[in-house]
């Protein structure tokens, strides 16, 4: 993006560190722009906290797209048919692309992607906890497409429609155009298994039972315990709270489960006529925080796999650099 901020190494962490005192007039004008629904662009004045919150949120989102390839990559070679293999390959390729769109967006905020990649492979960066759970059976591929991509679509559609930061919003528009087939292919696979042999039905029901609660955690901590929500909402980065988006996902998903004869592992689920919402049970937030802090079933494995892929690609990057230098040198001799 022309006019991106000059970059210099700094941590992308949004801690409670002191922020420079900002001109109240500039801040008032910025907030008036947000209130008018204007798009904030890279060269516009923005509060430092806004910049940091965006870097935090966008980099975590980009990392999630990249790490999200790993649980699925496990199953590409084990897909039960060519049709399923093709769709899984295309989906994983999309996720790589989505990560790149969002890394590109973060670079407009003066962070460069090399630094972000470094934070990911050293285990410093956070990404969506959902990817720290193992994919035990083929049915997990269908359920991930249906649940995890379904939850992502709920989040990303809201960002594509309302996010106040232009580059992030535009990246989300791009992502949403591609994301819908992910959910649909997952649901097709789930429906086929649910209507298959008793063993297939049991396998997909088991996958649903394992993925339901972690998927609900994807929307982040409850509104009462979400340290970043207030700022993100105030500055129009997000339009809806974590709990609002979570409820929307639950309302969409339950009828889909019923349509294919699958149950959800929550005995307290009930439809509330008054609100039109499905009321669901208590989420185990201890489990959520444990996985966020690095102690989920696969945290170390995911970071190690990502690091290995990055290091194994070093020779390709070195070769590309050497090739470009050789070509440029040849051009220089010819010009001389």
């Amino acid at each position, binding site marked *: *993006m*022309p*006019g*991106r901020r*000059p*970059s*210099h*190494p700094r941590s992308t962490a949004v801690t409670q560190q002191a922020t420079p005192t900002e001109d109240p007039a500039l801040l008032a004008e910025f907030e008036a722009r947000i209130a008018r629904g204007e798009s904030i*662009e890279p*060269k*516009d*004045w923005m509060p430092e906290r806004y910049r940091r919150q965006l870097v935090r949120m966008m980099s975590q989102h980009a990392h999630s797209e990249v790490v999200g390839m790993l649980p699925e990559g496990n199953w590409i070679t084990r897909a039960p048919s060519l049709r399923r293999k093709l769709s899984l390959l295309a989906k994983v*390729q*999309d996720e790589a*692309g989505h990560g*790149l*769109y969002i890394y*590109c*967006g973060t*670079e407009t905020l003066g962070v*460069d*992607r*090399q630094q972000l990649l470094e934070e990911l492979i050293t285990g410093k960066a956070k990404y969506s906890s959902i990817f720290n759970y193992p994919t035990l059976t083929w049915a997990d591929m269908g359920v991930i497409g249906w649940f995890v991509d379904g939850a992502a679509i709920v989040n990303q559609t809201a960002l594509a429609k309302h996010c106040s930061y232009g580059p992030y919003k535009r*990246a989300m528009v791009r992502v949403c*155009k*591609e994301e819908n087939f992910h959910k649909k292919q997952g649901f097709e696979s789930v429906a086929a298994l649910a209507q298959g042999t008793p063993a297939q039905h049991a396998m997909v029901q088991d996958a649903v039972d394992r993925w339901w609660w972690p998927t609900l955690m994807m929307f982040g901590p409850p509104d009462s315990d979400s340290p970043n929500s207030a700022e993100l909402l105030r500055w129009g980065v997000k339009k809806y709270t974590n709990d609002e988006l979570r409820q929307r996902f639950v309302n969409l998903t339950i009828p889909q489960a019923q349509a294919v004869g699958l149950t959800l592992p929550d005995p307290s689920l009930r439809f509330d006529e008054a609100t039109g919402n499905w009321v669901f049970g208590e989420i185990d937030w201890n489990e959520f925080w444990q996985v966020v802090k690095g102690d989920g079933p696969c945290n170390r494995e995911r970071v190690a796999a990502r690091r290995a892929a990055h290091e194994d690609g070093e020779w390709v990057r070195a070769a*590309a*650099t050497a*090739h*470009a*230098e050789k*070509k*440029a*040198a040849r051009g*220089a001799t010819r010009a001389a």
Partner: protein
Amino acid sequence: MYGTVLPVGEGAGQEQDPTAKAPAAGAPTDGAIADGQWQLWEVFTQETQGAPHEHAGSVRATDAGHALQNARDVYGRRGKVISMWVVPTGAIAASSPSDAGPFFDPMNERPYVHPHFYKAPRGVRGV
């Protein structure tokens, strides 16, 4: 009168960052590698014949050919793209947000730039 042109892209990074290594002598200027990182390129795509090229995003690459290839892989994977431009980010001079008013003044408050300001004799058509 131009707006203040801010330095952008890798070049700016080097000015700002005293720890950045200067490119080695003889290193390509258009694929300058600052800080061990490939140069940043802005990508513009055209969707249909006759449509404008629009900014799609950015890629990192060693040189123009490599940038085109990466841009094709990232921004031309899905959907319709029939043409692409890649431009080193540092080569783009951009207006600044404070220019929005005076720099792009459409002169709408001046009535004489609009046709209805002028009169023509009654009955004359097509003026």
